[in-house]
């Protein structure tokens, strides 16, 4: 890690607002993308983002400058997203088929994607229900194993598998419908 970064972290640990803002500005887009993947809409994502940064600023004093600072932050955000999932999961019991339709990321001005393709892919994630989306994220993006994910979520591995396959099937359908070009790029459909 270079010296500038080191300094920034030290100043954040001291609680300097300037430094905190700088850190935020540097990483906000990176982690907002992560939050959007997990949340069901952009306002939930903003919540996760805020809480995540708060946790980071709170515990940055404990960070021993040993290695991957970004990775350390990333883990905090993933954990924050999982916390959020656990908290809101009970409310979602009856809304299995769809999440709040009004917050469609395709038309949401609160999320400035750098590419429309990414925006669409995230929208497909939002088409899943919370369990499917969380598990897909954990297994595919965070590369948890099925067993690790089961332990983390405190469910049976078969539950994880079920939701994972369901998520994948739904995403496959959506991609088949809407993203033929993309699939060709990855050789997932014939010409």
């Amino acid at each position: 890690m270079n010296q500038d970064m080191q300094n920034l972290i030290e100043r954040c640990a001291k609680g300097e607002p300037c430094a905190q803002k700088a850190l935020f500005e540097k990483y906000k887009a990176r982690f907002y993308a992560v939050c959007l993947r997990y949340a069901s809409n952009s306002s939930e994502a903003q919540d996760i983002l805020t809480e995540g940064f708060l946790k980071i600023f709170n515990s940055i004093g404990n960070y021993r400058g040993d290695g991957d600072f970004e990775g350390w932050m990333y883990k905090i955000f993933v954990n924050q997203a999982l916390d959020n999932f656990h908290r809101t999961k009970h409310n979602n019991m009856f809304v299995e088929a769809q999440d709040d339709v009004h917050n469609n990321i395709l038309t949401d001005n609160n999320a400035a994607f750098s590419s429309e393709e990414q925006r669409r892919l995230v929208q497909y994630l939002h088409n899943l229900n919370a369990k499917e989306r969380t598990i897909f994220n954990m297994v595919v993006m965070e590369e948890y194993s099925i067993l690790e994910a089961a332990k983390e979520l405190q469910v049976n591995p078969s539950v994880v598998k079920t939701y994972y396959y369901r998520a994948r099937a739904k995403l496959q359908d959506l991609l088949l419908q809407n993203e033929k070009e993309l699939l060709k790029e990855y050789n997932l459909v014939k010409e």
Partner: protein
Amino acid sequence: MNIEELYKDKLKNSEVAPPDVVWQQLSSRLEGGVSQSSVSEAARRSSTSMAQGATAMATSKVVAVVAAAIVAAVVATVAVIGWNNDNPAAADTVVVAHHDEDDTTAATANIESVMQPDVASIAATTIFNAEVAQAVEPDAIVPDVVADNTVVDEAVYMADNTATSVSADSRVAETEATVADVSVFENPKQEQEPIPEVLQQLRMEEDKTFGEIFEQVQKIEQENVDSLAKYLQEMFTAELSIPRIITPNHDNINDCWVIKGLENYNNVYVAVFSVSGKIIFESKNYDNTWCPTNLPDGSYYYNVVIRDKNYQKTGALLIKSR
């Protein structure tokens, strides 16, 4: 199809700018001293998102109640069709149930009101659901009671203390109205683009499985209610009048311990204890012929059990010969 790679590639390093308001909230929280407020903020946030989810949840709970009503109505209809004629005992209970139905429905849809022994109506449901093989005269009263009671019970269980109360009058109309609304339940995404046939079918199959599981859970719950209701019914319908004082002074008035209503049951077990717990008298098939003459005056205890009816009563028995 391995879409994992596709997703990883495309989203792994994606960046999305959040709205400015996030920093405003964040900085004000940081100024305010974070560690305490983050917990309460988390609570506030979760309640906000809960409020968001609550509306959706309420709607879908109504939908679920509707679905439950449909299921219940179907089950009830099937049961009605299977009935023949002539079982006078059950017919009596039908009349009783209809009277008490108003009491049941007057209470708000609240699990407590169901669990309190408004027993006759619960018992009526028991009889209808459990003893399908037996016959009931399919007079006009019957379908009302069955459908209505079942709908109330299902609605209560599903809605989990937060359902709307169901009034007796509107219930039939409601059941009919909800039939039309089934389409909402089966096609929740009508307002979006048309979905291919295959996907629709898959989704319906998913819903069907969910519905089947749902039904089974309902059945189990109903069975639990039924057995409880049966138990309660038997408790309440076994009526004995047990005297608490006997005066064995040879005046032929209350010389013997005569339990009224005994003749209606077989094998009524009684036991009389002294204060110290010693059994003074015991009979496995009491016939009202115990007339103690040599017992010292004082308090004793009795225990009366009718095994077949799961009935048991204990109480004090005073013997006073002077």
